[in-house]
Every structure is written in C-alpha cells, then in structure tokens.
C-alpha cells in the first residue's frame, strides 16, 4: 500500500467552502509496517466529526505500527446495512465493521466474542446501558459487539423555541436552560403535542415527524408505541398485534396527528427532516443534534432557536428512541487482535470525550460513567441547546421493535413495518381494524426462516 503523509491532506475549513466538507476523505491510509487493518465506520452526520475519529485511529496505528485503512460508510440509502450484508455473504470485507440496531445479533454467528473488552470497559466506566446490553448479548451469553461511540444516538424532539412559545408552549419552562426538568414537564405528553401541532399548522409551521422507512422515522415511532404500551410481537415470537390495546391507542393517536403534518412525511428519508427544520419551515422534528449542527453553520438565524429536549410522555411512560451503532469484528477477519486493540483505544475516556465534543454532543456513550461530559452544557446558542439531549431522569431508552425476537425484529425494523402500519390507516385509508389485519399478515411473513 502506498503511504500518504498526513500533511498532504488539504483542510478545507472555511464556511464559504463548507459544501466541500461534504466531500470528505472517507478513505485514508497511513504508513505501513506490521499487520494491516481495514475498518468501516459510520459516516457522521455532524460536519467535521469524522476527523476526530480519524486522528484517534491514526495515532493508534502509528503507535502499534499497523497499516490502517478507514472507510466512512453512510447510512443514507441503507448503505451501511448493505455493506454489512455483502460482507456477511462474501465472508470477507472490513476487519472491524459498524452495524446498526438489530443487525449484530442477526449475524451473531459471524462475529467475534467481545466479552473481554466489555469486561474491561465496564470496570473502567460503569455499567453498560441495558438497552445496549440487550442488543449486543448473543444467544450463548457472549457479547458479540461493543456499542459504538460515534453514531449511537437518541432522537428526542428538536424544536423551535420561538414558534412553540407563540402557540403557548413554553419549552424553557418545562426544560430550563442547564437545569433539570421542572414539574411543568409532567404536562409534556402526546396530547399537548397534538394541541400544539394543530396550532402550529395554523401558523404555517407544522411539525414534521417522519413516517418513511428509514431509521429516523422508525425509531421515534417505536418509542411512541412503547409509551402506549404497544406490543406487536412478544419476546417469545407470538404475534400479539391484534390483542394489544397499546397498538390501537397509538394508531388512533397517529390518525389525529398525521392530519397536522405535511403530507410528504410518508416519503421522508433520514435527511428530509433535517432539511425541513433547517429551511425554517418546520417547527419540530425528532432527531439528534445533526440538524442543529448544520443549521448553526448554514442558517444561524434558525439555529439559535433550536432546542433539544425530552420525548412527550405516554400512558406507559416516557421513552427515548434509541439507535445504537455497534462495533463488531468479523470472525473471518485476519487481524482480530489489532481490531480489538483499536476498539479498546477508542473507548478510552479521553478519546470518548474528544469524540463526543467533536460531534457537539450527538454521540451518547453507552457506559453510565461517561454521561457527564461538559459538552452538553457548552453547546449553543441557544444556551443549553443539547443539555436535555442525553437521556436521563424518567426517560427510558427504547429500541424500536423490542421485545420481538431478533430475526423478526430486524425484519420489522429494516422494512419499516411500524411506519407502514401507521400509513395504512392514515394515508392508505384503512380502518384501524383493517390495518391490524394487514399488520398481522405482514408479521407472519417476517417469521420466514
């Protein structure tokens, strides 16, 4: 492999050439020596966040004398999922690969056990987030992956303070700047959201919650259904969708909410909600701070009103939509020890802090002892813009499609089952009963093995 000195890279950092930042350098090689490692990371949506990770990897590679090749793979168009599939089929590809949500467990047979690393990290940083444990612990009790630092996120509301104030919802009263949520937050529930949505639509700035098939849409819908106590497939694999009151309540609610949102939310992909709020049209989306980060750069007038806070409360609680990315090492990799060493290095506390800072607080570390970084207090304007972003308090983190068994859950997730279900009884014109019938048949299809 040819060596490319670090200094030859052109740093294009001015706002005028901000568009150039989109054309990053997603594949980088460093000087060679013993061993080579090919790494696939998730391409970060916050501009500039990739560079922090690149530097950490390069420093490690220099120290360990490993020839490292880094690929940043986007989640747009499901590219990162496709890459993982192709590598699983071909039994070759990157040594160290990033997986999303249910995928690692779906491929657990091909992934190297990670108990040693998880053990070390737990000792150093406190307990692993239960939801992350749920998604990385395989059938035989071994961990098959480590939650990724970059990309693991939640998708709470990100809203325009000024527009909500206009319709009578004072977000700062419920979630004050840099302080814990107040009593008023008890009233932040789906009904108050609906009322606000109606008024916002009348003002010409509807909320925009995606109902397409990509993760941005599926994740928040999963948390919404959870907050109504919906269970579509139980942990044993039985299809309970028709017997679950929570599902019916959730669908009834959505029938009302959909009327207050733009019609094209059904076709939204992961970038559409970002575009919607950055353009100034939207009053609220459910997203991690990537939209905020881009707005800060390109539309500061809108950015200074964007505030991230907690999910509305449902009858069964407050659930935060969780999307973990998980780092795994393929069993067929030829340099597993180097991969594990890199993993451990990235998870060192100072590196984690650097990464979270670089992503302006987008990345949520999965170990309890790392949720207290200063970055969430410092990001702004507006002050405290992402203070309420990391899940705490009564907000429980929830992985969409849980508690279904992995194979079914993965299908439900990737095919966007829940959003399709909502679409059927709103845009599609079915009644709730018809939609549930349709849903039950679809779920039977996912039981295919």
């Amino acid at each position: 492999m040819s060596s490319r000195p670090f200094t030859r890279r052109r740093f294009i950092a001015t706002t005028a050439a901000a568009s150039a930042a989109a054309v990053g350098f997603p594949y980088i090689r460093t000087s060679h020596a013993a061993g080579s490692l090919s790494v696939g990371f998730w391409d970060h949506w916050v501009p500039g966040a990739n560079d922090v990770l690149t530097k950490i990897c390069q420093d490690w590679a220099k120290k360990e004398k490993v020839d490292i090749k880094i690929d940043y793979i986007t989640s747009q168009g499901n590219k990162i999922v496709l890459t993982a599939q192709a590598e699983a089929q071909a039994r070759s590809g990157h040594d160290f690969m990033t997986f999303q949500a249910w995928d690692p467990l779906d491929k657990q047979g091909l992934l190297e056990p990670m108990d040693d690393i998880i053990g070390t990290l737990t000792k150093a940083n406190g307990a692993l987030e239960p939801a992350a444990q749920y998604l990385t612990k395989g059938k035989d009790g071994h961990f098959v992956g480590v939650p990724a630092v970059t990309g693991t996120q939640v998708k709470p509301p990100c809203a325009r303070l000024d527009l909500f104030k206009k319709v009578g919802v004072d977000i700062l009263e419920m979630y004050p700047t840099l302080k814990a949520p107040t009593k008023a937050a008890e009233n932040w529930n789906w009904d108050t959201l609906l009322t606000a949505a109606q008024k916002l639509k009348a003002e010409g700035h509807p909320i925009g919650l995606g109902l397409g098939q990509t993760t941005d849409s599926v994740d928040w819908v999963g948390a919404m259904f959870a907050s109504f106590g919906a269970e579509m497939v139980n942990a044993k694999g039985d299809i309970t969708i028709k017997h679950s009151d929570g599902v019916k309540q959730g669908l009834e609610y959505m029938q009302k909410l959909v009327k207050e949102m733009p019609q094209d939310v059904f076709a939204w992909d992961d970038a559409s909600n970002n575009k919607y709020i950055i353009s100034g049209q939207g009053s609220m989306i459910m997203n991690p701070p990537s939209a905020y980060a881009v707005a800060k750069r390109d539309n500061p007038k809108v950015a200074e009103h964007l505030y991230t806070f907690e999910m509305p409360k449902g009858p069964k609680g407050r659930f935060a939509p969780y999307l973990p990315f998980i780092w795994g090492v393929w069993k067929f990799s030829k340099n597993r020890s180097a991969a594990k060493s890199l993993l451990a290095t990235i998870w060192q506390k100072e590196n984690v802090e650097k990464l979270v800072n670089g992503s302006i607080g987008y990345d949520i570390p999965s170990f309890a002892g790392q949720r207290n970084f200063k970055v969430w207090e410092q990001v702004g304007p507006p002050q405290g813009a992402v203070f309420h972003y990391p899940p705490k308090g009564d907000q429980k983190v929830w992985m969409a499609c849980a508690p279904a068994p992995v194979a079914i859950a993965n299908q439900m997730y990737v095919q966007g089952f829940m959003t399709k279900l909502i679409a059927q009884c709103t845009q599609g014109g079915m009644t709730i009963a018809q939609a549930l019938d349709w849903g039950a048949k679809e779920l039977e299809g996912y039981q295919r093995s």
Partner: protein
Amino acid sequence: MAAVLPRSQATPAVRGGGLRRVLRRKSTLAFLMALPLIVLIGALVVYPALYSIHLATLNKSMERFVGFGNFEFLFKRDLFWMVVKQSVIFAVSAVVFKALIGFCVAHFVHNVPAKGQRKWRGMLLIPWVIPPAMSTLAWFWLFDPSYSAFNWVFARIGLPTITWLGDPFWARFSVILVNVWYGAPFFLIMYLAALKSVPEQLYEAAAIDGANWWQKIWYVTLPMMRNIISITVLFSLIVTFANFDIVRILTSGGPIDQTHIFATWAFKLGIEGNDIPLGASVSLFMFPILAIAAIFILRDINRRGNEA
C-alpha cells in the same frame, strides 16, 4: 435477422479433398471466433439465470431445499401482487407515453426544413445520453419535499404544491414521468429514421385522394412503420419492465411500497433484507413476462426477415 444469413458463394480454387479441408477449417475458425461470445453468455448470463432458479428453491438461510415454497409464500403476500400490478402499470403506461411522444415529436422534427433538423434532434436526444442515475438525481432534487423548484413556481402562481414523492399517486406519476422523459428520445430517433423511409409518393397519392393529415397518418404512416413500432415498443417494454435506477433513486419503492417494481423489490428483499432466495424468486417472475414479449418480437422479426 441473424436467422437469414447470406451464404458465401465463393469457392476456393482447390477442389475435392482440399475443398473439404477448407470448409472444415472455415467452420472451426468461425466457431473459434464466436467462442468468446459463447463463453461470456454461457458463464455470465445463462449460468446465473439457471442458478437463480436453483436459489429460488432454497430457504432463507440457503440451507434447505423448499421447492416451490418461496413462490407459495409470495403468492400469499398482498405486497407481491401489488408489485406485479405496479410493474405492469409502470411498464405499460411508460411505454405507451414514450411511443406517443416519440411518434409525435418525430413528426414535428420531420416537418422542419432538413438542415434545421440536426440541431433539434441533437437537443431532443440529450435525456437519453445523460446517465440515468445522474439525471434521476436532478429530478429527485426537483421533486424534493422542502426544496422543489416546481413547487416554488406553483406556490408563486397560486397553485397547490404537490407532494411529488410522498403521495402514492404522485409518486407513481413522478416515476413514470422520469422514465418517459428518459426514454422518449430513443423512440423519437427511431421513428424519425423510419419516417424518412416512407416514400413521398404515398403521401402525395393520399393527398390527391383528399386525405387530411390525420388520415394520412392512419393509412400511410402507421402501416409503413408497423414493424419499427412493434419492435421498439416490445423492446422498450422489456427494458422498462426491468428498470431499477429510477425507482431506486427517486422513491426506493415508497411510499408504503406503492412504487416498488420487481427489480427494486428484489433488491430490497434479497440484498437489503438478507433473504437471497426470496429476492431471486421475485426476480424470476419477470422472466415469463419477458419471455412472452420476446416471442412476439421474434415472430415479428422472422416475419420481417422473410418478407425482406
């Protein structure tokens, strides 16, 4: 076509045993020259096609043989029949519009004085020259929910904005529209060439008989162009039916799977959904329909070849 091949009448100077030797040499030489073609088609087209039939008989993890199990599974799914319906609607309506537009615009270009025709033809063929992946991206941006340039104009002149890709009807419309935009120039060029070969005298004779423009087209142009029209329509049906790029980039099959056609759904199931046998089964469904179209084309070509 290839079935009616000219036979070389040349005989070499050497006769008798030498003649047989030469003939033998010729046919082996011919075979050798065609060999790379045979190998290419055999290894990379025929073999994978047969292999896909084999794949379609396996279960999801490709460990068990399930015979027609996958097909039974598909027949029970509503979504499968919806994809069949959508593929047919997509292919048929797109081809009809492409042929119509191609035919009409060919006439317009034909009416223009000969020296001007070249530049009109040049401009009109451009959609077909730009790689479809890239031009579809331009359409995607034109249809974007937040930044659509079309909606910007509509809003300005008081028309309601259209959710080009979010509403099932409009999404289907947009997908067909882009395909028609891309493919019509091809029809245009074909029909223009064919128009030029229709003898003038026929039109003059018709004019003398008092035919108006519509009758001229019906009684002179269409019959003369029947072969080229049927060939282009059938060809295009096949290619459009198997289309992937446009739907994948514009809608990825959405909203609620309302724009999925065979190719995109096979991609979603087989590659994104990690269920290769099911994806193969879906793709295979294209084959019967393509085969029927192919039979018609071949019959037509043979007829033409025999007439010629």
